[in-house]
Structure formats: structure tokens, C-alpha cells
């Protein structure tokens, strides 16, 4: 008789990935790296890592994900989330990375608006910058 083969996440999960999961409510290990999110992200061209690569770093527990510009370029448009075959809403993962970075004092370059903007734009932009 062949013995039973059991696969489990236990012991393989990085604490950083757990923290991102806790904050985002999205399980990073659900992602199987198909790349559909990145193929459809309207902002991917401006990111230093593609959305699926950001998720891969999180899976690997690599905290360099906190220093990427990608989460700051992400506009929370949820295009990736509605298309992901595994139901990962990456916009939430991106928000968790922004919040974690801010709470650790890693902030993006300061923003100096060059003209008056509508409140709707300013409030949206600055909320993203407050942990």
C-alpha cells in the first residue's frame, strides 16, 4: 500500500506573509502566479514590480516588497481582483503593503501639489499616505 501523501502550508509560511494576510484579509498563498492580474493592470507599465511579482515577494516573506514603488502606483482599481482565477483581491494586498510601509516609517517621496486640486483628488491621495 502506498502511504498517504499530505501537503500543507504549515511550516512554510513566512511571518511577513502572515502579517500581510492579517492586514489585507487576502491569502497570498492562494496565488499560483498565473500573471493574469499583471496582464490586465492598467498601471503595470509604471510599476517597478508587476502585481504578481509583488505577491511572489510576499509569499517568499521578502520584506523588500515594502520598498517598492508598485503599491504606490496601484490605484486600487480592482481590475486584478475581478479577474484573478483564485479570487485574490490584490488591491487589498497592495493597501496592506502601503500601510505596513507607512507604519514602519518607509514613506514615498513627499508630494507637493503644484496647483489647487479638487478636494476629491486631494482627500483620496492623502488618505493613501496616512497609516
Amino acid at each position, binding site marked *: 500500500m502506498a502511504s498517504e501523501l499530505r501537503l500543507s502550508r504549515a511550516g512554510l509560511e513566512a511571518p511577513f506573509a502572515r502579517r500581510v494576510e492579517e*492586514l489585507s484579509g487576502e491569502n497570498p498563498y492562494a496565488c499560483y502566479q498565473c500573471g493574469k492580474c499583471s496582464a490586465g493592470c492598467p498601471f503595470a507599465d509604471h510599476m517597478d514590480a508587476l502585481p504578481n511579482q509583488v505577491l511572489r515577494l510576499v509569499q517568499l516573506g521578502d520584506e523588500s516588497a515594502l520598498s517598492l514603488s508598485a503599491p504606490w502606483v496601484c*490605484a*486600487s482599481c480592482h481590475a486584478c481582483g*475581478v479577474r484573478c482565477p483564485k479570487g485574490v483581491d490584490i488591491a487589498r494586498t497592495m493597501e496592506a503593503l502601503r500601510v505596513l510601509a507607512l507604519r514602519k516609517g518607509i514613506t*514615498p517621496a513627499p508630494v507637493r501639489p503644484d496647483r489647487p486640486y479638487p478636494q*476629491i483628488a486631494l*482627500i483620496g*491621495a492623502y*488618505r493613501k499616505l496616512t497609516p
Partner: protein
Amino acid sequence: MKTIAYFPGCALKDQARADETGTLGALARLGYEIREIPRWNCCGTVFSLVQDDLMRHVGPVRNLLRVQAMEEEKVLTLCAMCYGTLARSAHFVEDPERLRRINAFLDPDAYQGGVEVIHLLTLLRDEVGYERLAAETRRPLNGLRVAPYYGCVLLRPRPFAVDDPDSPAAMERVVEALGGTAVPFPERTECCGTHLTVTRKDVVEERVGRILRSARGGGADALVVTCPLCHFNLEERRPAGTPDLPVLYLGQLLAWAMGEDDPGVASLVGRAAVSSEAVR
């Protein structure tokens, strides 16, 4: 007259003031008595996506509480961003434990839950109906080729989509009901860049260029939008060489068709008509 509670939000009272006047005038013609929420506050514009951030839901829930105090069951928004934050917050506090904790901030009042948040587009589709819209149209669009641009918030994330996120049709149907020709185009559901307009103007310009070229490629003479921030970006963030497509807010198009006199809309429709010569 049918009463409906109304949450304007900051944009409709300031940079998009013109959108509000015409829309409310058109809704009055359609038999709605608009009840603006007294002492409404900012919805927050973006919905917080992290799990441990209750504080940011207090603002939107306070607005829902005020709708409850008006003894209305529904609240109308004209802005897609307001729709997004309010609808998602209403859903967020369907969980009794979250509701209990948010209500601790609202003490001595308490939100009971159950207020439904709707957007102008869903009001037109589900309550007024396309047939009635067509019947009430006094100044038909005469086949003006209008491209509906949905952007994000009315379609994503999925639980809050007012229509099929991949293939929406509601705005096209409204345009047709008002006598226009709806022009679908590939970029109609792709994000304009939203508040990146403050931090990454370059990125938004690239997006806006693509969206307008895509609409023009489909043969559009004007764009119609549901969000004042999309509206701002699509007008103010055009890179050089972008086609000169006028952008109208959905309520402006409605106001025009219902016969409201709004010089701003008249000039926009005029601009569209010049490029198409469809409106005579």
C-alpha cells in the same frame, strides 16, 4: 412626488457644482423630491482596504445614520466615489461586531443598518426605467455618438458592481433612451488613474490619452461619465495630441435631454455636435 434622500459629497458642491444643478432639475422633472441629508460629512472618497482600520468607516457610517434619522431607506449619490465608499461601508457594518464598535464612536446615536446606497445610474435604470426616460425626453440627442465611460467604482469590486463588471450595458441603454447612439469602446471600464492625479500626473496623462483615443477610435463625439474625478482627469490631464472629445457627466446629459436650461451643458453638447454634426 417621490422623496429620496440625497448625499451630494464635496465635488458636487464645488468643482462639479454645475453637474448637481442640472441633474437635480432633471430629477425634479421626473417626479423626485430630493431631500439633501442635513449636516452630511465627507464620505472619505476611498474605502479603506485594511482590516484593522475601523476609524475610517466612522465618517461614511455617520452619513448612513443621518439617512436613518430622516426615516428614508435609500440614499442617492451622484458621484461614483461617494457611491463606492458609502455602499461598501454599509456592507462593512452588516457584521454585528463591527457595527457595535463603530456605534461606540457614534454614541449616543446608533446606526441600525439596512440603508441602501444607490447611484444616479441605478436610479435611472431600476426606478425610472429606460422606457419612461425615452418618453420624458424633450430634447433628444439626435443620434449624437456618446461613449459611456464607466471607470472603476461602479463596477468593482464585484459585490458592489451595479452592472456586469466585464460587460456593462446600463449607461449605453440610458444614452439610447435619450436619443443618442451609444459607442462602446475597449477602455470603457479601465481606470483613469483617480487620485494619482495629485501624486503621479504623468501616469494619469498616459491613461487619459489612451481612454480618449480609444473612444475616438470607436467613433465617439463625446464621453459620458458617472464620477466627478474621472471628469476632472479626462478634461484636465490630456496629453498633447489627444482628440478633442467633450466629456459630460451623466446627469448633464440627462438634464439636456429633459429640457433643462444649462449654458454649460449647451456648450458641451454644442462642442460634441460640431465634431459630429449629428445634433441640429
